């Protein structure tokens, strides 16, 4: 069973959007763009407790109550052997005909002016044009026998959750429990007898009754008891955490611990349902209260544990996405009205083993509005410095510099393009010797042709390498390269970072890098990162402006525009 898509019409801040889905879906975007509302759209389909609240007029997009709310989810069940496909099919009955592999589940609510609400009606079937109305028993629709929604709020109260589910979590129905429970009951009575024996308690009880009677004259007495004897055993027990090596019990007071325990409790609860139903996890911002390392640990579970097979999660945290793979990234953003873009992100096979490394930059970039993709750490250090001199808040304004390293640009810009996150690429004008020949292939040109998908730049090998050859090559094709900058936001270095920088601020390089002994380019290229850091520390605002304004670094201007 695989989620295919969702369409939301006239619901809250969604006028009419359709988004592709898969089984693991991550929703991200700025605050207040509708991530929670998106989860609500799902809950109105799958969660009977939400559905029975009906729709208010404010649930209608801009209160347009003359149009119905419609939420349609498409699910592929062509895998007939899959148990979850079977769970769904077993309830669909004749709503799904032969040759139909996609199930549409639709909630529709026409606003009723008299009742002042929209009552959700559910439909399903294999033909979107001829869906069958879903049977309903009380507040249970057929679908409620198929799906079990586990909604985990960003601020779920662990104690409340534990208490609410204590009866399901703590089943003491074995024969030997009877005696123990009887004993506990007796002990509680003893406890209360002991408590009443304390002089302070006695004194309080004696003093408080007359005070009470001043306000209201009743024949009452006040007694102080332990809650456990009054409200029952389960009212008074809470989970404690004990480190295996230590004797002490730690109250689960830290918000982080509580959060982890919340996830553990939900795990247990979901296991109960797993046999008969399909568990659907809807998780809001799980990063809250969790330390970075805990977020990374959580990421490992979310993306590796079978339990979270069907996941819809909102997040603002790149760490939660550290291990992402086979995941649908859904970016919700606000241009004039709410829009969204989504992309199925799969770690390419060749990078499977380096998934975390590949993801590290990407997970940061997808939270940005504009991304400058650069070759490596030197560019990152230099450009970061320049941009922060131009605008100290550039990162807060949604600009992010992503060094692609050995992964190349493609895995990154494809995802960013698909999510409509503007991105600018700055790459080197590389030449590489062809084996066995005295010729050099024009690697930088080929790369650009490849990214554009069109052979705009000449691709035949050249006879010479070296700085001058590169500059020559660039200058001969400058018109085309300028057009490519304009049209595709692809910026080729004339040579590489160091030579290009030298063209912009040669004098300063000589001055700031005394150890370079007059060869700043060689020096910078020698121990790339360290020497670049050494340089950046000395760059002045004036220098940064010069770099920013230089033809070789127009990419910076574009990313800031």
């Amino acid at each position: 069973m695989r989620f295919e898509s969702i369409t939301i019409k006239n619901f809250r801040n969604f006028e009419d959007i359709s988004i592709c889905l898969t089984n693991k879906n991550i929703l991200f975007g700025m605050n207040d763009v509708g991530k929670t509302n998106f989860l609500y759209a799902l809950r109105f389909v799958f969660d009977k407790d939400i559905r029975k609240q009906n729709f208010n007029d404010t649930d209608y997009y801009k209160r347009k109550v003359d149009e119905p709310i419609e939420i349609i989810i498409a699910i592929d069940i062509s895998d007939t052997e899959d148990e979850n496909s079977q769970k769904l099919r077993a309830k669909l009955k004749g709503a799904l005909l032969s040759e139909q592999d996609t199930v549409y589940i639709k909630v529709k609510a026409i606003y009723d002016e008299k009742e002042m609400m929209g009552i959700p009606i559910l439909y399903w079937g294999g033909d979107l044009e001829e869906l069958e109305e879903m049977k309903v028993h009380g507040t249970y629709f057929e679908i409620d026998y198929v799906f079990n929604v586990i909604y985990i709020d960003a601020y779920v109260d662990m104690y409340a959750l534990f208490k609410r589910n204590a009866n399901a979590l703590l089943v003491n129905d074995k024969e030997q429990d009877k005696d123990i429970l009887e004993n506990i009951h007796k002990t509680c009575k003893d406890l209360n007898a002991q408590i009443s024996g304390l002089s302070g308690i006695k004194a309080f009880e004696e003093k408080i009754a007359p005070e009470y009677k001043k306000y209201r004259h009743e024949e009452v007495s006040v007694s102080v008891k332990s809650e456990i004897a009054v409200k029952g055993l389960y009212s008074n027990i809470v989970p404690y955490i004990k480190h295996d090596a230590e004797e002490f019990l730690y109250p689960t007071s830290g918000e982080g611990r509580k959060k982890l325990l919340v996830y553990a409790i939900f795990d247990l609860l979901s296991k109960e349902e797993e046999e008969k139903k399909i568990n659907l996890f809807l998780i809001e911002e799980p990063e809250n209260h969790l330390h970075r390392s805990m977020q990374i640990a959580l990421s490992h579970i979310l993306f590796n544990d079978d339990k979270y097979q069907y996941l819809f999660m909102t997040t603002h945290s790149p760490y939660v996405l550290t291990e992402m793979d086979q995941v649908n990234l859904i970016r919700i953003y606000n241009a004039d009205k709410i829009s969204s873009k989504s992309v199925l992100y799969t770690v390419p096979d060749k990078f499977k083993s380096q998934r975390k490394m590949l993801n590290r930059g990407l997970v940061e970039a997808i939270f940005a509005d504009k991304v400058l993709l650069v070759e490596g750490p030197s560019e990152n250090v230099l450009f970061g410095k320049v941009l922060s001199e131009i605008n100290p808040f550039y990162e807060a304004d949604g600009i992010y510099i992503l060094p692609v390293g050995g992964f190349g640009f493609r895995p990154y810009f494809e995802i960013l393009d698909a999510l409509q996150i503007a991105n600018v690429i700055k790459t080197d004008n590389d030449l590489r010797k062809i084996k066995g020949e005295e010729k050099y292939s024009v690697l930088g040109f080929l790369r650009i042709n490849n990214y554009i998908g069109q052979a705009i730049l000449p691709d035949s090998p050249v006879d010479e390498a070296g700085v001058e050859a590169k500059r020559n090559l660039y200058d001969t094709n400058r018109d085309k390269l300028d057009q490519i900058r304009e049209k595709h936001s692809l910026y080729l270095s004339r040579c590489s970072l160091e030579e290009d920088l030298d063209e912009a601020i040669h004098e300063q390089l000589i001055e700031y890098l005394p150890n370079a002994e007059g060869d700043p380019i060689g020096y910078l290229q020698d121990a790339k990162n360290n020497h670049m850091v050494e340089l950046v520390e000395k760059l002045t605002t004036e220098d940064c402006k010069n770099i920013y304004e230089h033809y070789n670094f127009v990419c910076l201007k574009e990313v800031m525009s």
Partner: protein
Amino acid sequence: MLSPIQKQIVEQPGNLIVRASAGTGKTHTMVSKIVYDIENQHSHKVVAAITFTIKAANEIKERMTIDTANHFIGTNNSFAIEEVIKPFMKDVFGKEYKVDMSTDYSAKVNSFAEGVAKIKDEQILCSYFDSKENFIFQLALNILKKSKACQLYLQAKYFKIYVDEYQDCDKDMHDFFMYISEILKIDTFVVGDEKQSIYMWRGAYPQAFMDIWERQEFSKMFMRDNFRSCQQVQNYSNLLCNETRDLYSPVEDLSAVLMICASGTNWVPSVIPHLDPDKKCALLRYSNANAEIGAKELSVGGVEFTYVPQTPIADITTEAAWIYNAVAKYFVLPKYSVYDFRDEIPNEVVGNKRVVNYIKKVLSVLDECIKAEDVDGFSKQVAEMAEYLGYETKDDHCESLYKTISDKRFHPAFNVDGLQRIAITFHSSKGLEFDQVILFVSDYRLSSVQDIYNYYVATTRAKTKLIMVYINNDWNATQFAKNINNILDKSDLKMSDVATVVDCIHKKVVC
């Protein structure tokens, strides 16, 4: 409590066929097995428990100790209709068959094509003129074979199918169930007893049951230990059929089975001295007319017997049948309340207050109509309530219901358990048991297999005493005598070895 063989049946996985002689605890074993299988099934899948009558389905539901809401427990026709025909007919025959169908087996057709056309034109699922052919199951199998969606649906939903009283299946049902078992590979459990096949006249095909007995992919078990009847009654019935003949175990006391030779005029005084007035007794006759006459004669003779007739609503086979039955019970049985009525509504959520209030209102109006002898008003109210509950009534059915309620003679039919002595047809005695049974051997000539099976069913209703009346000079009785002697002869036995023969013509007891 389960006997060793019953326990073995309960725990046996996979396809299984069980031959269960009368009184061997068949229903108890089947219910235990269903519960066992459900508790050991860790997935969303459910079972279908399929019976021949609504009564049998309700009995299974009542006996189940676990929540059965998602499982299918119902009659074979409702399984074919609700799980195959209604949902998937459109998948095979086209969108014009996406109609709200109702069943009316009194509507008859000659051919498959006519039956299909009737669904399109009148939204009625009907039956064939030829009672040995089964339109519902021919249609269901036709759809099942052609609809991939239907096949996948059944496979996705069911992990096992249980069919009760398999000997009563006709050929079309058998083909249908075997398709599910063999082609869809859904585990199948069938239980039955070819000796108890009393419906061959309307197409039942006990050979189907024996056909499964021969199949390799089915495990086989035989329940022969009768827990109902005393040893002598068991002996007598076991001797009737080849496969149980070896269970014969001689007993000293032959007082439990009596063969009373009497005349048409003195059979009552000949029988009465042998009856224990404190124990329940049933007179079983082949025809309703003879049952009624028999009850009258016994009552005149000093022992009250109540004739339980077939009610006018007993033959109704439409979907609304349960409504007529429930309304009748409400007015006939003092303890039957509006809540009992509600509990009979198929697929209704328990505790729906609005429905209860509505039914209450309608029933009080019906009460007024009965008092005022207003048949039309009565029919109109019943039709209205049926419509409210999503069913359709027919005028003549409503009139039959009115007759059932207003004519006191039909009332005993709703209270068979509460009567000490009754007279009924042996067909309606199936599945019942009585301390004492009186039967007339002239009802069973034993010249056909069907006849022997009928006789087997009648004799095995008795727990402690079986009284057989032999009317002298009756041609049918003579035939019986000839055939029973041949049957007993196969075990080298005579009637006097297995029964106490009482000669009331010549006033002496032959030992």
